[in-house]
């Protein structure tokens, strides 16, 4: 044995690894190829995360400066008074609503003609007119102040632009040209003087305003019915609350100081809890994510409410009840839905579903459904229905996997104890696969929250928090979503502007949401595996 070994050995070595590429054998090449692929995907993920954060992180500094200018240029001061004016406008709307109700009462209950009804509410009209006109002095004050504050902000913006220009010239190595750029510093103290000078005038106007409102309301005409009288009483109450808020406004104005610094946390808070997303406005831009977040969540919730019973139900049917032929038909059909491009679904949503749902909502027999009838074709409901269609394949496939993982012996044991098929499904199969089903639902949610095209096309794109006081009818209101806003606005923003960065931060938020959802789903699945043993 030992004597023949050396010959064999050389034989082996001579023929091992004939092929070499950069000194690597074929085996090594294959290893590098596959390893490289794995590494590339990790690198790409890291790069995406890095850029998302790099572009987004600057937002908070920008937003803080944005808020500082808001304060320094006096916009905040003016907004105190403007809020007062806006609240008054809301009360005026309440009165117009009350008028509509009265006319309805006269025409429907008392069977008066429209002209007679209008005549009957003439006294009310006069009252409402007086109430509405009372705000005029305040309104003219606000409009003057608005002009002044806008002018200050404009000056500030010009200064900032000039500074940027100068800096760019310096950076480009043209100090001579840079020196020629004139930067006019804004003297906020001097600029704000005229604005702050209006305080005594406001004090008088506000006092007069309050007195006038109290007078007008005390002389309000009586209502023709008890229900309407209740509404008027409610109005009186609201008005009293409104008037009680006046001293606070005055106090805000008196103590207002443009030098007060904006805390860093507020730049963050005004994004996360800001109730307004307002861009490219002449007055002040707000980057509050709440309307978008609420929109995304509402649409996803509606989608889940529809998709969970459909997806899980179909999975239970296919896995437990269907015959092999049915299985062969149903499974590919449901899985095919995920192959439809979402933009095509969006088309379908606009052209068919939105139209059909609206027509359905106007059917008299269905008027008991909350929110029906409605006229806005594109809304939470339309988008939610389509997103449900997108979530169903995900939920179905994963839930079916979970059901499949339930050992067959559980099913047999249950049948052997005299359980019916339904009892077995409900008492054994579904509980045993519950965590798998929950994680399927979570992954469906992740799929839905990240979906863009459908919501952009079908959610209605109104940037406002939907009116939750409407109860369930809220789902017939249009919303805008986080994904939708990024897709819509990213193409139009100036690269590097605060708006651009704000969109990145919205992207970050989405990223975190998806991450959290996926993490939760994985955790649940892991626990479930242990439980089955």
């Amino acid at each position, binding site marked *: 044995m030992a004597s023949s070994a050396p010959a064999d050995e050389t034989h082996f070595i001579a023929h091992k690894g004939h092929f070499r590429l950069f000194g690597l054998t074929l085996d090594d090449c294959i290893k590098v190829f596959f390893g490289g692929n794995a590494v590339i995907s990790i690198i790409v993920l890291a790069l995406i995360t890095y850029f998302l954060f790099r572009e987004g992180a600057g937002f908070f500094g920008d937003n803080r400066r944005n808020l500082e200018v808001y304060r320094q240029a006096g916009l905040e001061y003016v907004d105190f008074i403007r809020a007062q004016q806006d609240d008054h406008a809301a009360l005026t709307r309440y009165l117009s609503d009350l008028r509509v109700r009265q006319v309805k009462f006269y025409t429907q209950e008392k069977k008066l003609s429209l002209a007679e009804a209008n005549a009957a509410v003439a006294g009310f009209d006069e009252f409402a007119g007086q109430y509405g006109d009372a705000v005029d002095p305040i309104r003219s004050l606000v409009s003057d102040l608005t002009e002044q504050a806008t002018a200050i902000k404009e000056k500030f913006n010009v200064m900032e632009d000039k500074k940027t220009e100068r800096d760019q010239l310096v950076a480009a190595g043209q100090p001579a040209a840079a020196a020629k750029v004139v930067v006019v510093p804004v003297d906020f103290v001097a600029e704000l003087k005229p604005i702050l000078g209006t305080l005594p005038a406001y004090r008088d106007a506000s006092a007069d305003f309050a007195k006038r409102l109290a007078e007008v309301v005390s002389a309000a005409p009586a209502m023709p019915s008890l229900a309407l009288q209740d509404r008027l009483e409610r109005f009186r109450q609201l008005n009293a609350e409104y008037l009680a808020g006046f001293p606070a406004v005055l106090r805000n104005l008196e103590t207002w100081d443009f030098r007060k610094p904006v805390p860093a946390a507020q730049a963050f808070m005004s994004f996360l809890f800001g109730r307004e997303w307002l861009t490219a406005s002449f007055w002040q831009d707000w980057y509050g994510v709440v309307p978008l977040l609420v929109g995304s969540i509402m649409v996803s919730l509606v989608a889940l409410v529809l998709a969970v019973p459909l997806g899980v139900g179909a999975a239970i049917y296919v896995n437990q009840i269907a015959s092999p032929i049915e299985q062969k038909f149903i499974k590919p059909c449901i899985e095919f839905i995920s192959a439809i491009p979402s933009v095509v679904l969006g088309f379908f949503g606009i052209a068919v579903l939105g139209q059909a749902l609206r027509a359905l909502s106007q059917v008299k027999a269905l008027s008991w459904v909350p929110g029906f009838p409605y006229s806005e074709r594109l809304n939470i409901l339309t988008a939610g229905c389509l997103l449900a269609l997108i979530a169903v394949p995900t939920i179905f496939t994963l839930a079916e996997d979970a059901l499949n993982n339930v050992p067959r012996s559980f099913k*047999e044991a249950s049948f052997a104890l*005299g359980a019916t098929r339904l009892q077995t499904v409900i008492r054994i199969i579904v*509980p045993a696969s519950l965590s798998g089903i929950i994680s399927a639902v979570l992954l469906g949610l992740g799929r839905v929250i990240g979906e863009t095209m459908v919501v952009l096309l079908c959610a209605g794109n109104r940037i406002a928090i939907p009116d939750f006081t409407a109860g369930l009818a809220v789902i017939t209101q249009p919303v805008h979503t986080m994904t939708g806003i990024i897709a819509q606005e990213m193409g139009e923003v100036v690269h590097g502007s605060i708006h651009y960065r704000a969109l990145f931060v919205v992207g970050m938020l989405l990223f975190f949401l998806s991450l959290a959802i996926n993490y939760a789903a994985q955790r649940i699945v892991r626990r479930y595996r242990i439980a089955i043993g």
Partner: protein
Amino acid sequence: MDTLAPAPTPQPPAASVPAVSAPAILPAPAGEILIDIDQVDFFYGASQALHNISLQIQEKKVTAFIGPSGCGKSTLLRCLNRMNDLIDGTRVAKGSIKIRGIDIHRPDVDVIELRKRVGMVFQKSNPFPKSIYENITYGLKLQGVRNQARLDEVVESSLRGAALWDEVKDRLHTSGLGLSGGQQQRLCIARAIAVEPEVILMDEPCSALDPVATAKVEELIQTLRARYTIVIVTHNMQQAARCSDKTAFFYMGKLIEYADTRNIFMNPANPQTEAYVSGRFG
């Protein structure tokens, strides 16, 4: 749906204490024929698994089915409570299986009721991923028993019946999957007897157990025979010899010999049986 109950005394459906308390087992002397298998042919799709099997199983005896793998003994066992219905493409092509004279394949036989009367214990212990208590009460709850005292009572009596009570009485509400293999199998037996069946089918109940656990289950079978008719499929010939009264030997889907256990092992009539029980093939 008609049930298997032969007596024309239907129980009031409103009773919160159904089948279990009522004497599901009609008083019959041991040795009377309970299950009558008559010339049964059975198919999995196109392949025939059982050929013309005729066999009579006596009440309150332990009947063992032995034979090499694939000989059809498990198939026949699963025919007795129609568990084969769960497998697509299976059918009993010929012959009949009668329990107390009623053909279990008759269209008006409720298979659910049949399975309540003919319980089953599987090869691999398969407690539900629920607590021990819930495992035992599962069958009763299916029948609508909600009375807590009654459930407690059945849990105790079933666990005692399966010789498991002393081991688990302090942890009834922990998961059944936390028990050892032998305990799990006895839990499955307790679960089966909780619904008071007449017949208990055991499909190689000890094949996954160690010798100590096997001994306990065999001991249990000896005590159960006083109350239940037991049909056991086993690969272990010593087991068949130790704990059965009658033994049936199957080979290639055919019943070769069926006789008292003593005769099968000591004095087999058929040379194939002799070859098998003496270990020359199988």
